[in-house]
């Protein structure tokens, strides 16, 4: 997952003059906030099973996002605008053990006049609390490091650590991802650690259809949050279709009410699970070894 808007938040709180900062915010916040619109997903605690590969395609279209400066193809911070950009991300996750996996991302962007562009790659190992520990909630921890081109982000090397806590109770599902992010190379290197929580609540209307609300935010630097107006706040009413254990389908429309957020995004995730273990689900008549 590309970094949230923490990079910008650090800028905002740096030692610029107040007036200059306010002027900058108007032009800088939204373009940078949009850079995370590549993989929009609240993580559940479960990991991909060993000898199993999960292949996902994240398709996100920004209906109302950042726009270029007059006479330029870039926004004020030197990145491509997100307005009417189609972001396609391929995520490949390989299960390692019953409690670990590693994910790999290929980010792309296409926009009128720019063609299809490679944006960057990330790698994301993840571990979780094994079932045998019998914790009352699901818990896992992922860490993600990667590169994205300067044309798409003011910070090219970034790192994220993401605790994941979730719980399914009957038809209700709750998940929270209080992620922390940091830049290693780029304009925000000196800005410290940013806080970007995500959360999800959903309800199983039927066995197949689950509807809920996803929340994505970036509050800014830890200990020095931005004011609400400049925080990234996105709300995605979303639907999950549980058509098969081998498929993952998610669709949502996101609204960003603050200045620091792209205002309207449509997202879709289609995932397919490939089981290389040579046997089928437990309890199946087809199961063998």
């Amino acid at each position, binding site marked *: 997952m590309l970094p949230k808007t923490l990079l910008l938040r650090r800028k905002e709180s740096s030692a610029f003059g107040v007036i200059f900062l306010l002027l900058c915010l108007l032009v800088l916040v939204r373009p940078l906030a949009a850079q995370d619109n590549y993989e929009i997903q609240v993580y559940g605690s479960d990991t991909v099973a060993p000898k199993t590969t999960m292949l996902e395609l994240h398709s996100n279209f920004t209906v109302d996002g950042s726009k270029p400066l007059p006479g330029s193809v870039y926004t004020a911070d030197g990145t491509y605008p997100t307005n009417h950009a189609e972001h396609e991300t391929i995520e490949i996750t390989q299960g390692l053990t019953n409690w670990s996996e590693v994910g790999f991302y290929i980010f792309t962007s296409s926009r009128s006049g720019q063609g299809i562009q490679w944006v960057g790659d990330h790698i994301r190992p993840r571990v979780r609390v094994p079932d045998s520990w*019998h914790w009352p909630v699901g818990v896992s921890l992922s860490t993600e490091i990667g590169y994205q081109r300067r044309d798409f982000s003011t910070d090219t090397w970034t790192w994220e650590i993401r605790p994941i806590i979730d719980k399914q109770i009957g*038809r209700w599902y709750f998940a929270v991802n209080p992620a922390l992010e940091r830049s290693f190379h780029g304009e925000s290197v000196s800005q410290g650690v940013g806080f970007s929580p995500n959360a999800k609540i959903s309800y199983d209307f039927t066995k197949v259809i689950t509807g809920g609300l996803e929340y994505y935010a970036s509050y800014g630097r830890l200990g020095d949050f931005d004011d609400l107006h400049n925080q990234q706040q996105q709300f995605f009413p979303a639907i999950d279709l549980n058509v098969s*254990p081998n498929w*993952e389908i998610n669709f949502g429309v996101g609204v960003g009410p603050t200045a620091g957020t792209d205002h309207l995004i449509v997202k879709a995730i289609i995932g397919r699970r490939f089981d290389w273990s040579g*046997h089928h689900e*437990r*309890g199946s008549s087809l*199961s*063998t*070894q």
Partner: protein
Amino acid sequence: MNRRDFLTGCTALSAASVLHSHANLWAQQMADVTLTIAPLDLEIAPGKTVHTIAYNGSVPGPLIRWPEGEPITIDVLNQTDAPEIVHWHGLWIPSNVDGASEEGSPMIPPHGRLRYSFTPRPSGFRWYHTHTYAGHNLKRATYTGQFGCFYIDPKENAGSYDQEIFLALHDWNPYMSGGGDASMDVSYDFGSINGKMLGAGEPLRVKEGQRVLIHILNASATLTHWLACSGHEMQVLAMDGNPVPIRKNVQAVRLAPAERIDVVIEMKQPGVWVLGETRDDLRKAGMGVVVEYANQQGEPRWIAPPETLWDYTQFARSQKAAESDVRIPLVFRSKFTGHGDFDHWMINGKSFPKTDTIALQPGKRHRLVMQNESTDDHPIHLHRHTFEVTNLDGVPVSGLIKDVLVVKAKSTAEVDFTASNPGMTLFHCHQQSHMDFGFMMLFRYA
């Protein structure tokens, strides 16, 4: 009203009367077998202890071996704080001693006792186990160690052999898991054979050239198990204690909960081997036992069998079975209650105890025409009768006699039985989490 409420109401009265009538018997004569139900800390491997409930302080409970046709009396003492009951699985015995309160068998009150008296039949490999409700309490019912083998010696043995071994499979430390795309299911931390994890118990000691008859019981509450013996073929002699029409050599056997199988293994590969689950994760969780040839040493070796599909029809005759007199259609469906809970189950659109109680015509041959529209397999079990498998997913067969049959997801199966044992008769899925949430019904005799 759920199953627990139903049981409480319908058994209280019968329990009181039966217990009273049996009270004098205790003083008059000793029983042939005594089972004591009590909590047990069971060490399934060094350093791994499970807290469970068991018979006579052991898992499995004592092997009951009894000659065909001889009456038996079994005293059961319940030293727990909950009502209990013992079901004698696979026996043609009356409803009031079958050990299913839904049929009218009395519960054994906490710290109470009960005498069961019946004549065990038919011969073959049967078993006994608790038949209580667990629901979401996975420390009760068949999740515990309350099971044991019951062998009714036939007039003639099923095959020639040099050694006879009983193996009982069980899974321990159950917990709800799953969610996501599927509903909750039960998973386990450990598995065991005869109460010990792989490598923790005594090995099966064999000699080269021996024919070893192994009676295998899957006493897991919910898990189907696959077993193989590291390169040794297994000849299937009987299923659920009943000789199969066609004996086949197989690389691996599949056993759903409550299923039994009798196999003969010719010991002709000296070494130290693992007889265990074919799936690595379950075998590593303990589901296996070491087979040690005489004068052989070393680490037990595991050889995975080739890909095997389980097909009942290979053990049955391909001819059509006799026509039935009465056809009883049964449709199995699930009712979704959330990805965070167990599904509820329905037979012909109703969950127990609201299911229809269907009347059987005495002496008539009845055919259960089962259509499983759910996405789960169901090991269905008919109490107090055995049935002949007559059709599997459209393929007519005959001669295969069982009391538990896996009706695969999205498939059909037909079984025939003759209504020859009057009394209330329970029919249910033997997965504890299915029967507790509605997958039961009763037959009554007209």
